[in-house]
């Protein structure tokens, strides 16, 4: 069993199109939530005018043609573009020197909840609305949820074990955890792992609207007057490699990834259970060989919904006991939105960057304390505090949970 470190991070999000801007926003508690552009539909006459909620966490100033030529873009849904760009930034930070041997054996594990469904929607619009008898021939390769992993593999020439995981809002936490275990066991000498999501298209937005879980204004996790989640788009990828390999090539580890826990609630598709969440948290601590008292910060799932927040606080209290009151906890979804299949990766990256910089990102938009969420949720103001270990928690619809544990690297 090898020690595994994070040696590179890449991010695209509503609060920054790269890692540095992402961190700068988190470290200043700046939210990227605002109006979703009108043109989310398959035709000009159908767009946000048909959606009851108005706000989301959208990438601002993103221009795909800066990064990809037109031919390449023909083959990529937005979610796949985000995957590749986040992977490029992570690999660049890690300073990977690509040899033939490394390309043949490196792994790619990506998570996405919805994949390229925006592209599928365009195809179905032609079929069901425009009365055409055919859809675009690239609908399948653009729509499939593994397109992110496939495009990373093509972009880098990586030929090792590569696959995608789709477990709704836990997808990329599961992906990072799986990649961590593969590197730890020696099954792969290095991995690119994370997730990507581009869910801001009309059919998808209408589906979330129908679930009545989206806020009419903003995401206020753990606030008494929280009113639901805010959908976000983005991606984050990490480079995971053995500590010894990173040190041997002179790379600077950002943090050590030390634990991964998974569980299933086995109860309800949309009502999460504190027992299931607690089992995943305990699993991550056990896998890391850590006592609960060693954790200083938790990046919470913190969706800002009725169903999640009280459940999550109950789970934390059950696992940590009296130490729960000494934990610093925040939900960065209050700034980058709920990026679904990318959420676990964005939040794992936020957790690592918090330890790198010695600053804990706050829960933004916090207004009124909720007695049912009576933990220290770092309301609104970032906190200068160097913690030695952090958890990143993901609890998906369908009751599938994934928790990652990281240690600060000195």
């Amino acid at each position, binding site marked *: 069993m090898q020690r595994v470190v994070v040696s590179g991070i890449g991010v695209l999000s509503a609060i920054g199109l790269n890692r540095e801007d992402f961190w700068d926003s988190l470290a200043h508690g700046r939210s990227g939530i605002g109006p979703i552009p009108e043109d989310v539909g398959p035709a000009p006459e159908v767009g946000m005018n048909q959606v*009851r909620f108005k706000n989301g966490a959208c990438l601002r100033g993103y221009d795909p043609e800066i990064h990809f030529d037109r031919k390449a873009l023909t083959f990529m849904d937005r979610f796949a573009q985000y995957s590749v760009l986040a992977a490029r930034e992570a690999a660049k930070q890690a300073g990977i020197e690509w040899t033939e041997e490394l390309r043949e054996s490196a792994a790619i594990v990506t998570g996405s909840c919805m994949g390229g469904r925006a592209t599928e929607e365009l195809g179905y619009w032609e079929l069901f609305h425009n009365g055409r008898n055919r859809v675009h021939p690239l609908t399948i390769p653009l729509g499939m949820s593994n397109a992110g992993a496939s495009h990373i593999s093509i972009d880098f020439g990586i030929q090792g074990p590569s696959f995608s995981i789709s477990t709704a809002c836990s997808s990329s936490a599961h992906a990072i955890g799986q990649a961590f275990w593969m590197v730890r066991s020696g099954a792969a000498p290095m991995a690119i792992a994370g997730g990507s999501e581009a869910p801001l298209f009309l059919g998808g937005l209408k589906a979330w609207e*129908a679930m*009545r879980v989206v806020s009419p204004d903003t995401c206020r996790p753990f606030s008494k007057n929280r009113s639901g989640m805010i959908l976000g788009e983005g991606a984050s990828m990490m480079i995971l490699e053995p500590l010894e390999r990173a040190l041997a090539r002179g790379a600077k580890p950002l943090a050590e990834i030390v634990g991964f826990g998974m569980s299933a609630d086995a109860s*309800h*598709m*949309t*009502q999460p259970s504190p027992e299931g969440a607690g089992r995943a948290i305990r699993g991550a601590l056990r896998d890391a060989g850590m006592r609960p008292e060693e954790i200083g910060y938790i990046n919470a799932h913190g969706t800002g919904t009725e169903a999640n927040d009280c459940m999550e606080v109950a789970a934390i209290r059950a696992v940590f006991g009296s130490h729960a009151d000494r934990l610093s906890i925040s939900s960065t979804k209050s700034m980058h939105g709920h990026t679904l299949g990318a959420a676990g990766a964005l939040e794992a990256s936020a957790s690592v960057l918090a330890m790198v910089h010695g600053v804990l990102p706050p829960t933004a938009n916090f207004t009124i304390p909720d007695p049912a969420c009576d933990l220290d949720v770092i309301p609104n103001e970032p906190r200068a505090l160097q913690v030695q270990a952090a958890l990143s928690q993901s609890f998906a619809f369908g009751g599938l949970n994934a928790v990652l544990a990281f240690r600060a690297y000195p």
Partner: protein
Amino acid sequence: MPETIQDRVLRVIATTQRLPVERVKPDSSFEELGIDSMDSINILFDLESEFDIEINDEDAKKIRTIHEMVDGVTYLVEAKQNSSQQG
């Protein structure tokens, strides 16, 4: 006798919950009918179709009983009729 609004609400609940319509009474509690949060969202969706109305999220969150469902639907149906008469 034509179906009243209450009859129609009870029928929608029975259909959505796959229960015999006799089982669904105005005084039945959600617990008795096995209605959880997701079921409730399903029922509201079917009520919107049945009556061609739109139930907003804030009002939807407050509904805890069948009486409140019937009252809410009645209010929205009357509001719709009034606005169409004015229009």
